[in-house]
C-alpha cells in the first residue's frame, strides 16, 4: 500500500468525476476521496520507518519522480485526505452549477496538495506546488460570490502574488541544482553551503512561503480571497493549502539552510508573533464573518510559524499538531458561516444575531468550534497551542508572553463574534436548525476535536522520528 496509489486514486478520481456528469459527480468524488482517506489511514498504520520511492524521470537535467514517506508527510497527507471528503460532503444538499468540473477540480487540488506533501525532488515538488494553484484559481473565480469584477481582482492578485513568490523558490532550486547536480531532497540536505549562499536560499524560499502561509505583511491577498471564494474554496485554502507553506518550511527551508535559519530565528519568531497580535486585533472589528475568520486564521498561522521557526523539537511538533487542529477547526468554522449564509443570505455580522433560541443544535456545535479555536483544554487545539507556547518560553519567556496574548485576544474576538452572531433577542427571520447533512459534518469535526484533544499522542508518536530526523539535519 504505497503513497503513489493515493496520488493515483485522486487523479483518476478527478478524471472520472468529470466524465460521469453533473448528477453523479459529487458522489463519485466523495467515494474516491474516502478511498484515498482509507488508503492513507492504512499507510499511516503500517508506517514503521521512513521510506523513499525514487524513479528516474528525466536523465538530463537529472530529475526524479521521488516521494518521501515519513511520519510528517503522512500526517499532512492524512489532513488532506481527511478534510477533502468533509469538504465535498459540505456541498451535499445544495445545488452546484457545473458540478462535474467543480468536483473534479477539488480532487485535482487534493492530488496536487498531496503531491506537494510527498515530493522529495525539488522540481517535482515545485510542479505540485504550482499545480495546486490552478484548481483553486478556477474554483474561486467561477464559483465564488459577490461582484465578478471585484472577485476577479482579488483572485488574480492572489494568483500572481503567490506565483511571483514561488518563482524565487524556483530560482533557488536552480542554483541548488548547479551546486548539487541533483534535486533529490537527500542530496540537498547533504549539501554544504556557505553562510552567504544559505542566506540567499533562505530568503528565496522565505518569499514563497511567507506569501503562501501567509505571514504579515505578505497576507493582503488572504482576507479578500477568503471572502470572495465559495466556502469550498475557502476551506481548501485555509484548511489545507496554507499548511503547504508551513510544511515546506519544515521539510525544505530549515534543513537546506540551517545556519541561516538559526541566524534569523529571533526575527522570524517576532514576525510570527506580530502576526498573532496583528491578526487578532484586526479580527476584532471585522464586519464580515468570513473575513473575521480569515484574520483569525492569520493569527493562528502566525503562532504556528513561530513554533516552526523556533527550531526546537517541541516547537515543530506543536506546530504540526496545531496545523492539523487548525485545519479541522477552520473548516468547521467556515462551514458554520456557510450554514448561516444558506438561511440568512448574508455574511454581515450585524445582520445576524438571535439564532440560538431557534437553532440549539447548531449553536452547540458552533460553540464547540469557537471553544476549540480559542484553545480550550480538552480540544485538539489546546495541545498544539500549549506545546508551541511552551517551546517559545524555553527560548525566551517574552516570546511566550507575547504569543500567549492569543489566549486573551482570541477569546475576545471569537466570543464577541459568537455573541453578535448567535445570541440576543430572537431574530425576526426564521432560522431552521441544521439538517442531517450539516449535523453529520459538524458532528464529525467536533468528535475529532475532542478525540485528538485527549489522544494527541497517537499523532505525536508517529511524527516524532521524522521531526528528530530533520532536527539532526539542522544541527
Amino acid at each position: 500500500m504505497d503513497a503513489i496509489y493515493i496520488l493515483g486514486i485522486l487523479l483518476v478520481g478527478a478524471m472520472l468525476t468529470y466524465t460521469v456528469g453533473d448528477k453523479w459527480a459529487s458522489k463519485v468524488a466523495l467515494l474516491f476521496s474516502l478511498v484515498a482517506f482509507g488508503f492513507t489511514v492504512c499507510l499511516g498504520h503500517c508506517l514503521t520507518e521512513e521510506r523513499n520511492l525514487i524513479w528516474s524521470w528525466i536523465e538530463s537535467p537529472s530529475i526524479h519522480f521521488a516521494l518521501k514517506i515519513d511520519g510528517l508527510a503522512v500526517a499532512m497527507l492524512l489532513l488532506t485526505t481527511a478534510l477533502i471528503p468533509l469538504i465535498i460532503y459540505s456541498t451535499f444538499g445544495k445545488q452546484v452549477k457545473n458540478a462535474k468540473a467543480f468536483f473534479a477540480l477539488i480532487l485535482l487540488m487534493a492530488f496536487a496538495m498531496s503531491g506537494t506533501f510527498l515530493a522529495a525532488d525539488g522540481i517535482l515538488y515545485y510542479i505540485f506546488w504550482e499545480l495546486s494553484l490552478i484548481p483553486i484559481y478556477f474554483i474561486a473565480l467561477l464559483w465564488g460570490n459577490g461582484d465578478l469584477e471585484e472577485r476577479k481582482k482579488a483572485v488574480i492578485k492572489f494568483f500572481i502574488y503567490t506565483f511571483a513568490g514561488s518563482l524565487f523558490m524556483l530560482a533557488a532550486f536552480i542554483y541548488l541544482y548547479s551546486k548539487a547536480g541533483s534535486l533529490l531532497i537527500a542530496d540537498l540536505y547533504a549539501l554544504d553551503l556557505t553562510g552567504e549562499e544559505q542566506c540567499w536560499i533562505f530568503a528565496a524560499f522565505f518569499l514563497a512561503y511567507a506569501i503562501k502561509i501567509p505571514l504579515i505583511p505578505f497576507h493582503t491577498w488572504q482576507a479578500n480571497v477568503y471572502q470572495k471564494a465559495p466556502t469550498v474554496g475557502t476551506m481548501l485554502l485555509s484548511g489545507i493549502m496554507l499548511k503547504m507553506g508551513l510544511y515546506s518550511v519544515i521539510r525544505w527551508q530549515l534543513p537546506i539552510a540551517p545556519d541561516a535559519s538559526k541566524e534569523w530565528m529571533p526575527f522570524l519568531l517576532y514576525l510570527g508573533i506580530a502576526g498573532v497580535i496583528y491578526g487578532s486585533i484586526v479580527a476584532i472589528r471585522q464586519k464580515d464573518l468570513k473575513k473575521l475568520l480569515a484574520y483569525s486564521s492569520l493569527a493562528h498561522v502566525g503562532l504556528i510559524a513561530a513554533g516552526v521557526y523556533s527550531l526546537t523539537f517541541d516547537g515543530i511538533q506543536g506546530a504540526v499538531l496545531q496545523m492539523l487542529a487548525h485545519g479541522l477547526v477552520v473548516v468547521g468554522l467556515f462551514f458554520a458561516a456557510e450554514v448561516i449564509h444558506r438561511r440568512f443570505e448574508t455574511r454581515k455580522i450585524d445582520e445576524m444575531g438571535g439564532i440560538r433560541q431557534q437553532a440549539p443544535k447548531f449553536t452547540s456545535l458552533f460553540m464547540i468550534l469557537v471553544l476549540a479555536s480559542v484553545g480550550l483544554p480538552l480540544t485538539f487545539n489546546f495541545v498544539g497551542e500549549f506545546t508551541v507556547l511552551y517551546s517559545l518560553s524555553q527560548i525566551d519567556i517574552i516570546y511566550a508572553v507575547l504569543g500567549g496574548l492569543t489566549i486573551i485576544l482570541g477569546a475576545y474576538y471569537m466570543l464577541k463574534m459568537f455573541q453578535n452572531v448567535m445570541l440576543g433577542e430572537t431574530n425576526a427571520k426564521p432560522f431552521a436548525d441544521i439538517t442531517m447533512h450539516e449535523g453529520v459534518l459538524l458532528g464529525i469535526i467536533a468528535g475529532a476535536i475532542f478525540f485528538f484533544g485527549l489522544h494527541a499522542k497517537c499523532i505525536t508518536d508517529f511524527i516524532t522520528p521524522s521531526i528528530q530526523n530533520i532536527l539532526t539535519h539542522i544541527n
Partner: protein
Amino acid sequence: MNQTLALILIIAPLIGFLINIFVGKKVNEKLSGSIGTLAILISFIGTIILFLDLNSNHQAMTVKLFDWIGTERFTIAFSFQFDELSVLWLMFVTGIGTLIHMYSISYMHGDENFHKFFAYLNLFIFFMITLVTGSNLLIMFIGWEGVGLCSYLLIGFWHKNQAYNDAAKKAFIMNRIGDLGLLIGIFILGALYSTVDFEGLKTAMEGGEGSYWISIAAICLFIGACGKSAQIPLYTWLPDAMAGPTPVSALIHAATMVTAGIFMITRLHFLFDLAPEVQNIIAIVGGVTSLVAATIGLFQNDIKKVLAYSTVSQLGLMFLALGFGAYEIAVFHVITHAFFKACLFLGSGSVIHAMHGEQDMRRMGGLKNVMKITYITFLISSLAISGIPPFSGFFSKDEILMTAFHNNTALWVIGSLASIMTAFYMFRLLYLTFFNKFRGTDEQKHHLHESPALITFPLIILAILATVGGLIAFPGKSWLNAYLAPLLHDGPQHAHHLGTTEYILMAVAVVGGLIGIVLAYMKFKQKNTVPVEDDQMQGVAKLVYNKYYVDEMYDATIVKPVNVLSKFFRDKIEVLLSSIVFGFASLTGGLGTIGRKLQNGSIGLYLFAFVIGICTILALMFIAK
C-alpha cells in the same frame, strides 16, 4: 476498589451532563432535575467514602489513565490525585453542589432551558472535580479553564439579554488574562524542574532555596489566582457575573469556583514558601482587595451586588492569610465561607423568587413576617459572616486577623476595618430586606410567600453548617490542622496558643462586628432610612456606588484603545499594505509601458541604438585591454 470509586465520582457529573444535554429536552423537568442532582449526589457519596478512609489512614491515592501531552523533556499524564486537600475540597464542592442542584429544581421551574441549566451545572461540577483532583498543573488547568467556560455559559444563561452576554464575555476574558499568567507560570516550572507534577515539584523544591525564576513563577501563578478568585486588579467581572441565575452565583461565584485560586496556592505552598516577597504581595493584594470591596459593598442597593462584593472582600481575607503562609487558616475560611455565603445567596434567591425577580433592596422590606425560614437562615449566616460567636465565621475570621496581627499590624487594621464594614453592610441588607414596611408594589405584596421546601431545605442545612462549621478548627484543638498536617507539615505551624493577647484580639474583633451591626441597626431599623434613588446620589456615595469608576477606567485605557487600534489596522494599515502590493504590479506595468515606447517601429531609432551599442561594446573592449 477505591480507584473505581474515584473514577465513578469524577465521571458521574459528566454523565449527568451528557444525559441532560442529549435527552433532557424530551423528559419532564422533574426527571431532568433529578438526574442532575443524582449525578452530584453520587459524587458526594463517593467523596464521603474516600474522605472517611483518608481521615483514618492518610494514604493518598493516584489514578492514572493515560499519557496526554508529551514534550521533549517530560510527559504529562492524565491522572488524578486524591489526597487530604483534594478530598477536603471535593467534600464541600459536591456537598454544597448537591444542595444547590436540589434548590435549582424549584428555582428554575418553568424555564424553557431547564434541562440545559442542569447540564451546565453538572459540567461545572465535573470540571471543578478535575480542577481539585488533577495530579499535575495541566490537568488542574483543564478544570481551571473548564469552570471558566461553565461560568461563561451560566452567567449568560438568559442569552436573549445582551447585557448578560456582555457580563459573561467579560468574565471569560478577564479570567483568561489570569490564565495566561498561570500558563506562563507552568512553563517556567516545567523548564526549571522538567515536570509539572505536584508530587515531582514538591520533591524538587522542598528544602530548596528560592531564586529569581521561582519568584517569577510564583507571581505568574498568583496572577492566575487573581483572575479566578477576583482579586485586584482582576475583580470587576465577579459583580457583573451576578447576571446569572442565583443558584449559579451561590455555587460558582461564592462557594466553589472562586476559591480555586486559594486552592492552587495551597496546593503549591512549597513554591510560595520559597518566594517570601511574592507572599508579601499576596498579603497586600488580599488585604487591599478586602477593604476596597467592603467599601463598595456599603453603598450597593442590589441585593446580589452586596453579596458579590462581600465575596470579593472575603476572598481578599483568605489571600491575606495565604500571604502569611497560613494555608490551613485560609482553607478554614474557604470552608466556613462556602457555608454561609452559599446560604446567603440562596436566601437572596428565595427573596428574589418571592419578589418576582426584583433585586433592588429599596423596593423590599418587611419580608421577615412572610418568609420566616428564609429570614432566620439569612440572619444566622449574616451573624456568621460578621464574625459573631459562636457562629462559624467568627472562628475562621478571627484566626486570619490574629495571624495578621502577629505579622503586620497595618494589614491587621485593614482586615479589621473590612470586617467591621462587612458587619455593617450585611445588617444594612438584612434590615432593608426583612424589616420595617414593605416598599414594593401591591401586586408584589399580594404574591409574597415563603419558598417551597426544595428551596428552604438547603437553606436550613447550610444555616446549620454555618452555625457549627467553626468546630472543625476549634482554637487549640483543631481537627483541620491535624488533617492537613501531612500535606503542609513543612510550613510554619499556626496553631495559636490562646494567651491574653489572643483573647483581647478576639474581643476587639467581636466588638468591631457588633459596632457594625449596631450602626446598621440605628440607621436602617430605628431611623428607617432607605437609600436614595440613583440619580440623587452625590459626592463620595456616588463615587463608591459606581465602584470608583474602575470599569470605566479599564474601558478607557484598555478596551477602547484596542478597538481604536483594530479600526486603524482595518481601515488604514490593511489598505496601505494592499496598495504596496498593487504598487509592485503598477511598477511592472509602468516598466512595460516604457519598454513599449521603445519598440515604436522607427528604423532611425533602432539604427541609432544599434550604433551606440556597438560603440559602447568596442569602447569597453578597448578599456578592458
